[in-house]
């Protein structure tokens, strides 16, 4: 009897639902955009996409259906198919692991456009309605590194650095909390380091800069990111930056009074005393471009790259902890980057050591200068290095595809662990 009722209840639910089934939405010709986000807006990474998409949709007068907390598995395909059912004309997913499921959906629904951030497969997969997008965030990180360098110079000249902030060769130590040991993160921390190093070399003759990197193996782990930051601070890091999405590292820095260069957005509100600046990708230009293409019925670029010029790569306002003259310096360097006078990965600014188990794809001359690097640009199962990335003494990042592929381990940066 009890079971009968339980099953009866189940049946009632089903019938009640079937009644709702009738009222499906139908497409009235207006444009609807779907957004698939890995986490909700508590993650700084996803919030950056959500805010940008809301702004772009408002500017363009189109409606938006937002799905948060979509895992990087079949959940993503289910969400995409559901958004198609809801009448979406273009669907954007924000996380690397969503890619293969977005491609599945793209194959199945050729009349809908599918766009994906940070992915690598659009230029080889040949699915006409599947597109990748990314921005030259390494330039933004380089500028954030410049701000960090200014701060370090100020601290050095003001005698605020302590003995443990220097390594045995007298170099200033800084730290970086990374999520995973792969190209996007490596490209990010290397450009940050090079930005900071350029200022140290310019302003201080007697000291250099070294950086420790600690990986967490997660994009969003409040505790692990905080612990990684604390570990770096205990090792003597005078300044911390991070490429992970929680408030773990900035909060740990605020508690320890160590300056922090953030990512994805300003953390000034939570960290008023230690926040210097944050670089972030501004997705509004891409989203507006994407919507415009769909409205006009034009093709969306297979592999779109945002830059400093179109304001896809931006810095937040400086925090109170930033050194004097930082804004002027940033403006100056930004102008040099935009004019092409300065390249982030100019091989003359760093050296590379090739050993048995690192930098296998690099060719290095006797002075440690990188002369050739075969990068894995075309994603395939073998991870075969397929494309020469060094042209005229510069590693051409994001030239062959939008997602980063700079994964050289340069001198001066020590990886404390690895996480894939």
């Amino acid at each position, binding site marked *: 009897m009890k079971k009968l009722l339980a099953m009866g209840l189940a049946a009632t639910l089903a019938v009640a639902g079937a009644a709702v089934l009738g009222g499906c939405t139908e497409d009235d010709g207006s444009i609807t955009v779907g957004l698939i986000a890995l986490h909700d807006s508590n993650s700084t990474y996803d919030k950056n996409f959500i805010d940008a998409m809301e702004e772009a949709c408002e500017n363009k007068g189109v409606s938006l259906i937002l*799905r948060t907390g979509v895992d990087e598995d079949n959940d993503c395909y289910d969400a995409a198919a559901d958004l198609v059912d809801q009448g979406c004309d273009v669907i954007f997913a924000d996380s690397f692991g969503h890619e293969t499921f977005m491609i599945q959906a793209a194959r199945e629904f050729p009349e809908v456009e599918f766009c994906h951030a940070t992915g690598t497969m659009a230029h080889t997969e040949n699915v006409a309605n599947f597109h990748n997008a990314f921005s030259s965030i390494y330039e933004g990180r380089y500028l954030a590194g410049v701000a960090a360098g200014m701060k370090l110079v100020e601290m050095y000249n003001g005698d605020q650095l302590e003995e443990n902030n220097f390594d045995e060769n007298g170099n200033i130590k800084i730290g970086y909390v990374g999520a995973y040991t792969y190209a996007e993160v490596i490209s990010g921390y290397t450009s940050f380091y090079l930005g900071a190093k350029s200022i140290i070399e310019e302003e201080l003759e007697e000291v250099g800069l070294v950086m420790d990197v600690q990986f967490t193996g997660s994009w969003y782990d409040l505790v692990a990111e905080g612990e990684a930051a604390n570990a770096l601070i205990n090792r003597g890091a005078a300044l911390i930056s991070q490429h992970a999405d929680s408030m773990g590292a900035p909060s740990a820095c605020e508690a320890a009074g160590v300056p922090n260069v953030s990512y994805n957005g300003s953390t000034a509100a939570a960290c008023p005393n230690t926040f210097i600046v944050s670089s972030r990708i501004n997705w509004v230009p891409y989203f507006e471009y994407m919507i415009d293409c769909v409205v006009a019925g034009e093709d969306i670029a297979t592999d779109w790259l945002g830059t400093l010029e179109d304001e896809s790569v931006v810095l937040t306002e400086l925090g109170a902890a930033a050194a004097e003259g930082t804004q002027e310096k940033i403006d100056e360097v930004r102008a040099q980057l935009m004019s092409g006078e300065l390249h982030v990965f100019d091989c003359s600014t760093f050296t590379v050591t090739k050993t048995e188990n690192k930098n296998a794809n690099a060719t290095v001359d006797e002075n440690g200068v990188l002369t050739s690097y075969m990068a894995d640009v075309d994603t395939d199962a073998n*991870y075969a290095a397929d494309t020469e990335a060094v042209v005229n003494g510069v590693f051409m990042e994001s030239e062959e595809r939008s997602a980063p592929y700079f994964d050289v381990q340069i001198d001066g940066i020590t990886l404390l662990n690895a996480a894939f």
Partner: protein
Amino acid sequence: MERIKEPLLHITRRDGMPLWKSMLIRAGAVLIALVISSIFISAAAPNSQGFFGFFGSFFSGSFGTMRRLSQLLRETSMLLLVALALVIAFKMKFWNLGGNGQILMGCLASAMCLVYLGGRIPNGVLWLIMFVVSILAGAIWALLPALFKAFFNTNESLFTLMMNYIAMYLVAFFITHWYPQGSGAMPSMSEYALIVKFSDPSNTSIWGKTIPVVLAAVLVTIFIYCYLRYHKHGFEISIVGESVNTARYAGINVKKVIIRTLILSGALCGLVGFLLVATVNQMITTTMDGNMGFTGIIVAWMGKFDPLVMIGVSLFVNFLTRGMSQVCIDFGFTSEALSDTVVGLIYFFLIGCEFFISYKLHFSKGRAKKDRPDFMDPAPKPPEITDTTAQTQQENTPDAAEETA
């Protein structure tokens, strides 16, 4: 003399309430919880659809389209399979908290087959191998704590719980090993999907992945129901659960029962792993278990360890989760904390109402006076709380005798 200070209210145990009445109370509790949620959410939402819009969204999350109905059935079947795996251990009072790990090991075994054998052998053979090794992997992951429980009487809750972490990190290790440059993501190998194909591709898209999972759930539910109710093993499980000493006295080999049952429990979790990889995802992540090993515990308990009631409970749990996440989408919330709060509120009301199903409240004045059992009249009592428990116990004795009879 006449005026004795009485407690304001006291509680007595109800004599078996008719089922329809208790179900009505439960439905009422859910309804009240939903109405309260609706008032708050429709008032606070950035993009409110109004009080009744809440209910519309809530239902459309599960029943809005055929695809959603199909997803609901698929998720319900998965959760039910896990809950069934756990319930046979729970009946024995073996607290298997390792569902997540056993599922993940099943997934890992299947994923290994995909990586190493995919494309090298016919898909049919591939699926068969995946099926067997997944079940074996899940069974082995449950067998380890069972052996320790049977021979050394270790704490199975802690043991199974820790095995979850080992499984998770094993999965992480293998993803890294196979895909060293992918930030912990394995691409989906959809060409090896075990799905039902229809002549109409849109039907394949909607139902292809659901049918194998539902089919497995139906077969396993029938099997477990019969196993627990009609098979000698099921009887042995319940005796071991009641009292290990009684079981021994009755000549049951307790060690054997523990080990045999846990192998079955783990094997069913391994089957879920197989379905997750072969049918649904064709890849693996460290969170592929979807925490069903723990949600399954709620289903088993709320279903009172009865496989048939558990069907309704898993459907209900998924209906709630899907409904609330649809409300968040439609009402413009971008934080998931809210949907968890509402689902928690509904559970709170649902579990709270069990109290009113099992017990009756008596107020000391007015109408309730008549209902008061005679033997409670004399004797001034100390303050109400200690008092009520004492009374409940007095009341319990005849009831309990009846129930066991």
